[in-house]
């Protein structure tokens, strides 16, 4: 499996960050979140449904996102997730951490 240039599995913990980021602009349902991550990452990242929905529930329990039923673009009922105030704070925090970490890893890779 790993030999072909297949979509990468997400790093532990990064899914939460990506979900929060995806929801920054507007509320989305689960399907759209997954599609959007794949699209923007140009299909490098693939969201496994087995992780997506548990993650959404986890974030909801953390109080960072909340869910509401709405009507999807195709006129079908869907569950839309949106960021809460504390979710925004969390997103900021995690983005900063991510930046610091990738910067640090990048430095090590370049200079070591």
């Amino acid at each position: 499996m790993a030999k072909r240039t297949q979509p990468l599995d997400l790093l532990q913990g990064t899914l939460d960050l990506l979900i929060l980021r995806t929801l920054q602009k507007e509320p989305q349902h689960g399907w759209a979140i997954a599609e959007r991550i794949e699209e923007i990452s140009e299909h490098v990242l693939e969201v496994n449904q087995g992780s997506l929905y548990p993650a959404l529930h986890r974030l909801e329990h953390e109080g960072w996102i909340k869910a509401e039923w709405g009507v999807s673009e195709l006129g079908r009922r869907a569950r839309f997730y949106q960021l809460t105030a504390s979710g925004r704070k969390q997103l900021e925090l995690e983005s900063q951490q991510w930046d610091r970490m990738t910067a640090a890893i990048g430095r090590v890779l370049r200079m070591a």
Partner: protein
Amino acid sequence: MKWADLRLRLRALVFRNRVEQELQGEVDFHIEMMVRKNVARGMSLDEARRQATIKFGSSPAILESCRDERRVDLVHGLWNDIRYAFRQFRRAPAFVAICILSLAFGIGANTAIFSIVNAALLRPLAFPDPDRLVAVFSVNPAPGAGLWSVAPADLRDWRLQSRALENLAAYSGGRLDIRLDDRTEQLTTARVTSNFFETLGVQPLLGRAFESGDESNQTPSIVLSYRMWQSRFGGDRSIIGKQIPTGSGSVMVVGVMPAQFTFPNFADLWIPMGGFGEMTRRATRYWQTVGRLRAGQSVEAAQAEMQSIASRLEELYPKDNRGWSAQVMPFEKAVVRDVSEALWILMGAVAFVIVIACANVAGLILARSVSRKREIVTRLALGANRWRIVRQLFVEGLMISLFGTLAGLLVARWGIGAFFEVLPNTALTSLNRFRERVSLDSTVLLFTVATSMLTAVVFTLTPAWDSLKLGLREAIRTAGPRTSTRREHRLYRLLVMGQFACAIVLLTGAGLLVQSFVRMLNVDYGYDPHGLTIMSLPQPAQKREAFVDQALERIHAIPGVENAAVMSYDFFGQLNFPFSIEDKPFSNGDVMVRYSSVTPEYFEVLKSRLIAGRRFESRDSANAPGVVIINQKLARQYFSDRDPIGRRIILSYNNQRIPREIIGVTSDVRQDAPGEPIKPEILVPWAQLPWMDATLAIRAEGDQLRTQRLVQEAIWSVERSLPPARARTVEEIHSSQVATPRLYTILIGLFSAMAMVLAAVGIYGLFASIVTRRSNEMAIRVTMGARRPNILWMVIGEGIRLSAAGILLGLLGAVALSRLMRSLLYEVSPTDPWTLGSGTVLLLIVALVACYIPARRAAKMDPMVALRHE
């Protein structure tokens, strides 16, 4: 915990269905979107669906992990597990029923027995600082004579001289006739020294306890038991200071004890003793003692000190005390010493029952685990969480033990009731008295429940353990219907073997008890018990000799009464007196022998034989030379080398040493219960030495109750003011003598029957499982030409071999344990080959019958069906 978290958890719990629907809707929506996307890419609808489903993965697993995120799963999951367990149980009702019944018997019997033991022996002794309570016994010089009660004068000296003991009190039994509402009622009293309550450290509920000087009151003070106070005086608080008329005067109530205080012997009331010169008696030993150690003193220190005091007393009073020493032991141990051995055996027996019961449950669960394994592997393959599976099995095991416990509680309650039903009314009345105190004992209940839970849970978890350990692929490979059963069956076989081992131990124990019980019933009492009644003869305060003569005369005149005699005590030869031989005194001082004072008719009433010399006659009157008759046992023991007739013995009586001539030797009359040896006995003529209490021995034809009534009327016709006499037939007395062995026999018999049934169920379960698992092999055998009887005997033979191995193991254990049984047995060797042999045969027959059912099924099986079944 965050607010959102809490809110969502609550919502998940309360609106469970809605939350589930939402989850499902979300997943459905996702899949639908995937399908649309695939269709848009140009797939056919079917293909689009297929691809979407494949890509989405196992939706139940995803849903499950979403639920995990909700974290209310433990509650929901548990509920699901319980429902699932119920479904499992419904599919295997026989399995569940047998498990629960096994546990019910095991837990029930254990709890019932221990609760009774606890109420009878341990709880009445709940006194403050019980560790400091001791009992002191006199120790007899004769070898093997054991522990004795204590003489009042010895007790007084011990108490005065001891430093290690803070206090030393005494108690003894007695009876008192009281008159209430013109009715005379006989009460069981405890005669106690005035420091009795103080020594035990108990306070009265009402009024006061005894104080020094109470024993010398002309109107004796009494302390009432709570039960008596409630039942006879309606809990009247003004009872203190009131006088109650008795058979010979009156008594005054000074106090009432609290309800939980019933020592000794569940007494109705306590009355002081030791007054009127009783405290100076040194020759007769009849007081039980209880002492309290000074804080910081040990039993050993008290023992050493008591021994030195006793040896001082020996020098001071050689006549009564030569050779007598003292023994101090912890009070609790002293009180239960007679019964504790039997009770330990009983507890051991019920422990065996619960072991067998647990083995049953374990075996059944093991047998089921084979099919459970496939189920578990399937669930694992479908993506189930391993710990969910473990938890679910755990819940199943827990539920089995829970139901077993509930049923066990019912059995225990019923068993306690039945225990008191089995008790004969005439016997062990003291046991009946504490009936209301028996409650289920929580300690042992906890213990048995814990044992059963552990068994059920450990064994339900074994299949899960295997599957988890092997890993999924290996587990699937080995979880076929016919494979991987060998290990379970090996363990199951060991369990069944253990059951048979335990069962044979119990069975032989029961067999030995039954045999010794039968021998006790057929024992030679040395007299004809049939038609013999023992009746107390209350005497007036004055002119006793004339009264006794007159009463006897009237009783003889009653139609149906063949003969009647007066004797000194409740039963034959129950008193103890020191004696020596005039021309050959014992080197260590006097020796205790049994003693009876009897009227001349005694020998004819009992129909005992005269071995030598003559019986008492009317010429042996008060003024004639002192004579005695000895029993054969005494003649053999002390006059083995010469003719006892004409020799003189010296009887210590009321501090006098009176020489008396032996005029006859009579055949032995059994004084005590059949288990006890016959003791040397001396009989003296009533006319020469009347005893303070008188008892009638009456031989009469026909209805004994009628006789008793007529005798009562005859006594009242002489003296109307006397209290009613107590009467019992000798057969009743014998029945109560063997009541305790009968009880043990019944109980052990019951337990061994339970053990046998449980072992039968165990071996049946094993072979039912073996036959099912090996139906393939059997079918192949049949197609290859094996005949049905071959199959039948193959299975039965295996069962017999297995049970025989277990029995052999158990027999070794039984022989090893038999030493412990010896004290309960009467004229039966603990390794009696007949008992061991018949127990073995019985158990083998049980095994055979239990194996026959699955064996026949195996033999009747259609090989084609069995082979196609795969």
